[in-house]
C-alpha cells in the first residue's frame, strides 16, 4: 500500500435511531486507521455507520420472519444472495433465527480511492435464538469479528460483503 492516511480518532458512541422496541446496541466507532488516499469525510462515515447498523436490523427481521424482501433495502450482491439462500434453507427446515446485536466496535479500515467502497471490521456481541417449528430451542450469546464491505447504492451505503473472520486468518496489526 502506498500510503496510510490516519484521520482523527473518532471514538464516538452512537445511539441507533430507530423506532424498534428492542434494546439498542452500544456502538463504538474508530476511524483512526483508514487506509487509502481518499479522505473519509464525516458525513460519509456517518452514512456508512447508519447503513451498517440498519442492516443488522434488516437481517434480524428477515431471519426471524423468513422474509427475503426485508434484505432488499440494506444488502446487495453476494451478501444479499447468501442471506437469501439461508432464509430459503430456514424455510425448508422449518426454523427461524433471531439475531440481536448487543454491541458493535466498528473500525473503518479502508476507503477506496475512487470512493466506491468502504471496508470496516466490527467486533460485535450478539445473541442468536433458534426457533424450530415455532418452538424456541436455545439462545446463544456470541461474539465475532465481522469484515464488512459497503458500496453506495441509490440513497445509502449498502452491505455487499459481511463475513465473520477466523482468528487464525487475521493479518497482523488489525
Amino acid at each position, binding site marked *: *500500500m502506498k500510503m496510510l492516511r490516519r484521520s482523527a480518532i473518532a471514538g464516538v458512541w452512537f445511539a441507533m435511531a430507530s423506532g424498534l422496541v428492542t434494546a439498542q446496541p452500544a456502538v463504538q466507532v474508530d476511524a483512526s486507521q483508514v487506509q*487509502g488516499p481518499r479522505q473519509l469525510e464525516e458525513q460519509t462515515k456517518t452514512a456508512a455507520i447508519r447503513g451498517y447498523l440498519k442492516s443488522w436490523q434488516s437481517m434480524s427481521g428477515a431471519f426471524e420472519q423468513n422474509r427475503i424482501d426485508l434484505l432488499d433495502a440494506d444488502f446487495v450482491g453476494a451478501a444479499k444472495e447468501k442471506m437469501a439462500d439461508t432464509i430459503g434453507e430456514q424455510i425448508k427446515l422449518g426454523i427461524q433465527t433471531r439475531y440481536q446485536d448487543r454491541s458493535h466496535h466498528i473500525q473503518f479500515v479502508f476507503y477506496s480511492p*475512487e470512493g466506491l467502497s468502504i471496508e470496516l471490521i466490527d467486533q460485535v456481541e450478539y445473541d*442468536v435464538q433458534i426457533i424450530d417449528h415455532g418452538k424456541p*430451542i436455545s439462545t446463544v450469546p456470541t461474539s465475532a469479528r465481522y469484515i464488512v464491505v459497503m458500496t453506495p447504492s441509490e440513497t445509502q451505503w449498502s452491505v455487499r460483503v459481511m463475513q465473520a473472520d477466523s482468528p487464525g486468518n487475521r*493479518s497482523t496489526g488489525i
Partner: protein
Amino acid sequence: MKAILTLLTAGLLLAKLQAAGGQEQTLNLPKSIEAGSAFSIEHSGGGEGTLYIIGPSQVLKRDVKAEGAVYFPARSLYDAGHYIVILTQASGTKSGSFDVAPISAPDKLSFFANPSRLPIGVKNGITGAVYVFDAYGNLITAPTAVSFELTSPTGGIQKDHATTSIGRAWTEMDSTSQQGSGKFVAQVGELKSERIIRQVPGDPCTLKMNAQQAGQQVQLQTEPVRDCSGNAIPDGTIVTFTETYAGGQSTVDVPLKRDVAQVKLPLHSGAKFTVASGVVLGNQIGWQK
C-alpha cells in the same frame, strides 16, 4: 461411624444411578475448518436429538443418534463465517461455535476502476481497488499478492504491485500521454480482471490563428489545435474568436472541425482579433484597413 457408612452407601447409590441414567453430554467441535471441506462433530451422552449449525450465510440441521459423530461431507459448509452449533437432546441442550475460513485459492476478483474516461497526462488520475474472493464467494482475508497494469494505446505499460490487506488492495496510476483506450488490469496469479479506460486529449497546448482579408470581411483560421502531447483536440471543442474595435466588440464561438476552427468577421479599421479555447489564450492580430 454408622452415619458415615450410611452417607458412603448413599453416595455409591447416587453414582450408580447417574451411570445408569446416562453419561455426561459432550459436544466436540472443530475450532476452524476450511470452506467446503468435510468435517465431523462428535457427541456423546444425552440420547437422540437434533443438531443445528447456524450462521447468517448458511444453516444446517441434522438428526443425531445417541452418540457418535455426525459427518458432513465436502461442500456441506462453504460460506466463511462464524457458526453456532446447538445440540438438543431429551436431557438438555449443548452449544458451541466454530469458524469457517475462506480457501486460499483466489477465484474471483471484484475490481473497481475509476474514471472510465479522463484527459491524458493526469498524475494519479486513474485509481483501482480490488477485492479477492475464493470459489465460494468468500473474501480471502489472508495477504495475497496483486499486480496492477495499465497499458497505453501505444503499448506502454505502467505496473504496480500490492499485497491485499483484509481482502483488498488498491493503486493509483497516471493517465498516459497518448489518447485512446487503455487496458487497466488487476491480476492475482492467473486470475485477471480488466477495465477499459478511455483517455482523451487534454486542453489545447497552444492556439495560433491566421487572418486573411476576404472582401469586407476578415477570415480567421486556427492552425491545427493539439494538446501538449501532440494529440488532436476532438472535433466540437469550442474556440472563441473575439474582434474588438472602436465602439464595439464581436464574439463568435466556433466548434473545431478537422482540427481547425475558422470564421469570417466584419472588417473594422483598427480592429484587434483574439482567439481562446477553454483556459488557453491564443495570439492576437491587429488589423488596419
